[in-house]
């Protein structure tokens, strides 16, 4: 079913509860051959350069399309596991000061820990492959970085070059790299705790954060052209070309296959 991804601040309390409960259910129940921890495994595996010598998920041009497919799959799985085809991933616009870390939604934080209520162990949230020895989800909001401002976002959004050689974390004139470092990395560091780690999808705000990143890429595409991924078809080694399959997703799940979100059953409000 086609869904409209809303700003979390526009969600009804019933929608917030349904989203949180679907995530919890997916921790213990598989859907479509996957479960929640599968997503954490993929994030860890594909952050690194894999045996094909390609960096699929980060520090490479496929950063945007890889996460678009990753979120689309999760949205589908949450709909399946909950039996609610209306479940959608909400986005978190971090340029406004309202945070999703509340007891009725992604869980409130006490001294850096989500120790009771939503997303606490007692509520039914367990951590997986945590590099920090704890059973409590960690957040150290604002300790290590500040949130991007609206003007910083618009400066990044005004870049015209999608990406260019050497296609990694060193490129300066690159919408992808500037977004990845100045907006994406920064918000991971702003939340801190598990969001700053390799196993960041342990924190459900990962999905809201990446949903906003995906929304910004979509807004950029609507200005610059939908099929503007670089590198185009060809033989660029070490990176995913426009028509090359992104691992671990199925055959044909290329940047080209996900360039138009209207073909992916969601839109942004």
């Amino acid at each position, binding site marked *: 079913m086609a869904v409209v991804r809303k700003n979390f601040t526009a969600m009804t309390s019933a929608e917030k509860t349904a989203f949180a409960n679907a995530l919890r259910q997916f921790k213990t129940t598989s859907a479509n051959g996957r479960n929640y921890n599968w997503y954490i495994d993929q994030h860890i595996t594909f952050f690194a350069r894999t045996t094909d010598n390609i960096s699929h998920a980060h*520090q490479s041009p496929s950063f945007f399309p890889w996460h678009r497919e990753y979120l689309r799959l999760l949205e589908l799985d949450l709909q399946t596991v909950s039996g609610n085809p209306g479940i959608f991933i909400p986005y978190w616009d971090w340029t406004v000061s309202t945070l999703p870390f509340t007891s009725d939604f992604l869980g409130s934080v006490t001294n850096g820990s989500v120790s009771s209520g939503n997303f606490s162990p007692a509520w039914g949230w367990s951590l997986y492959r945590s590099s920090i020895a704890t059973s409590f989800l960690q957040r150290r909001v604002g300790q290590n970085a500040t949130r991007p401002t609206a003007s910083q976002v618009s400066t990044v959004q005004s870049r015209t070059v999608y990406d260019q050689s050497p296609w990694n974390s060193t490129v300066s004139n690159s919408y992808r790299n500037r977004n990845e470092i100045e907006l994406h990395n920064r918000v991971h560091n702003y939340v801190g705790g598990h969001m700053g780690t390799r196993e960041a999808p342990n924190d459900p705000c990962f999905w809201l954060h990446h949903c906003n990143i995906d929304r910004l890429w979509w807004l950029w595409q609507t200005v610059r052209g939908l099929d503007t991924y670089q590198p185009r078809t060809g033989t660029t080694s070490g990176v995913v070309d426009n028509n090359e399959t992104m691992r671990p997703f199925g055959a044909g799940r290329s940047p080209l296959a996900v360039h138009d979100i209207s073909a992916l059953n969601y839109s942004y409000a």
Partner: protein
Amino acid sequence: MTDMKRRDVLRYSAAGAVTAATAVVGIQAVAGPGSAVGGEKAAAADPRDFEETYKGKKIKGKHNAGGKDELHINNKKLALTVISTLFIPEDGSEPYVANAYISAVNHYDPVEIDNDKNKEGLKKLAKKVVDMLGDLELSDEAAKAHTH
């Protein structure tokens, strides 16, 4: 981060200034900064070799020439990954590319470390990790390496 970045930038430019001054005095670049001070003492004082207590935790760094630097927090290993990445100073000065370390814990927050101006980056990284851990410790998962 805002403050830290600002400090980084200051230190970065300060180090640059020292290098320039040294060049004017005429010391060969190949001699390196250590030999100017004199042999073993300078070698033993590599800022990447340290063992001290920070906020109640033992932080231990070890520099391996030609190999991977090591870091332990309360005897738990933190695997380090070297990347080359763009740094974009928040004060609006020019972005620059530098070598940096990431780990499972500072995965999106590379810390500048190199053989030249940023040898003390390893201790800075150790302190950053302690600040992030608070009362907690690293788990065995933190010791698992991966490549970039």
